[in-house]
C-alpha cells in the first residue's frame, strides 16, 4: 500500500481541475485529517470523480457548440424569411392593383 504525505496530496490534487471549488476546499480539509495511507486512497477516488466531471463537462461544451451552430442556422433562416416576406408583400400589392384594374375594366 502506497503512502502520501499532505504535500504530495496537495501537489496531486492540483491536477484535479474539474472538482468544484467548494468541494475542493472540503477535500483539502479532509486530507489534513487522514493518515498517509488513507490520503493516497482518497486522492485515487477523487481522481475518478474528477474524470467523470471532466467527461460530462466536455459533453456540455460540445452541446454548446451545437447550439451555436443552431443559432447561426436560425439567423440565416430568419434572413430568408424576411426576404420572402418582402417579396410576398410586393406580390400582394400587385394583386390588389390587378384586381382594381379588372373591376374598373368590368364596369
Amino acid at each position, binding site marked *: 500500500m502506497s503512502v502520501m504525505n499532505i504535500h504530495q496530496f*496537495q501537489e496531486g490534487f492540483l491536477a484535479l*481541475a*474539474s*472538482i*468544484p*471549488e*467548494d*468541494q*475542493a*476546499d*472540503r*477535500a*483539502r*480539509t*479532509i486530507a489534513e*485529517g*487522514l493518515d498517509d495511507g*488513507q490520503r493516497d486512497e*482518497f486522492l485515487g*477516488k*477523487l481522481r475518478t*470523480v474528477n474524470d*467523470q*466531471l471532466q467527461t*460530462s*463537462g466536455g*459533453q*456540455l*461544451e460540445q*452541446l*454548446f457548440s*451545437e*447550439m*451555436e451552430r*443552431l*443559432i447561426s*442556422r*436560425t*439567423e440565416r*433562416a*430568419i434572413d*430568408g*424569411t*424576411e426576404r*420572402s*416576406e418582402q417579396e*410576398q408583400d410586393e*406580390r*400582394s400589392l400587385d*394583386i390588389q392593383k*390587378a*384586381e382594381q384594374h*379588372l373591376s374598373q*375594366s*368590368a364596369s
Partner: protein
Amino acid sequence: MSPFNRLPSPQERGQRQQDSSSDYLQQARERMEAGARQREQLKTFMQQKDALFGRGRAVRKKLEFNAQTGLDKSKWQSHFEGFNAETLQIVNRIRGNEGKLSQPRMAASYEQYLDGTEQVLREYEQNLQGLEALLNTYEQAVDIPPAFRFQQRRPPVSSWRWETASTNTGRPVEKAASPAGASAMEQSREAGRRNLLDQAERRIKGLEQSWETNGVIKLPDGPLYDRQSGRSLRGSFLLEAQKEALHRAALTHALRVSLRVPEASIPAILGEPKSYTEQPRPTGSSRTMEN
C-alpha cells in the same frame, strides 16, 4: 361556316381575357391564403419558441451555477457570455419578426438541443452527488464537525438572531456561561456563532497554508500583508490595531464568501472589535504608523 365566324368577337375576347385574369387572381388569392395559414402556424410556433427559450434560459442559469462552483471558470465564463449575447440577439430578432418565420422545424432542433443539455446536466449533477457522498463519508471518518460537513444545507443564517457578544478581541472566544434561565435556543445560537467563527478561522488557516511559499495573504479588496511579521508590502510595519482589522477583514471574507453568511449577520458573529485607543504607541525605528 366562314372562317371569320370562328374568330371570337371583341366581346368574347374581352371576356376570355377577363376570365384568364380572374383565374390568375384566384390562384394568387389561394397562394395568399396558404401564406396566411402558414403565418397562423408560425404564430403558434412563436409561442412555443418563447417557452423553449424560457426553458433554455433556465438550463443556462443552472449551467452558470455549476460553472461558478467549478474550477474551469474562465473557460466556461467566456463561453457563457458569448452564448448569452448571441441568444439574446436571436431572441430579440425573432420577437421583432413574429409571424414571419417559416421554419417550424427549428422548434424541434431547439427541443433536441435542450433535451441533450439537460441529460448531460443530470449526469454532471449525479457526478457531483457522487463527489458529495465521497466527501461526506471521509468527513465522518476524520470527525469534522457536522456544521462544517453540511454547511450548504444549514438553515439560512439570516434567520438567526445573533447576540452581540463582547469578545473585545474580535476573535472567537468562549462566552461566559449562560445566565440561569437562558433558553436552549440562545445557547444553540451562541454555539452556532462560535462554530462559524471557528470555520472562518480554519478557512484563513487554509489560505495561509496554501500561500506559505511566499508568506503573503492577499485580501480581496484590501492590502497585502504578512500575517507573521505584520509587514505590509510597502515595507512598513502595521500596528496591532491594523493587524486586527486585517484579520477581521479576512474573517469577514471567509464568512461571506466561503461560508455564505449574509453580510448583515457578520458583525454580530465577529463581535465588537478590540479597542486599541489606550494602548501605548509602539516605539523604535522599525515600527512606524502607516498613513
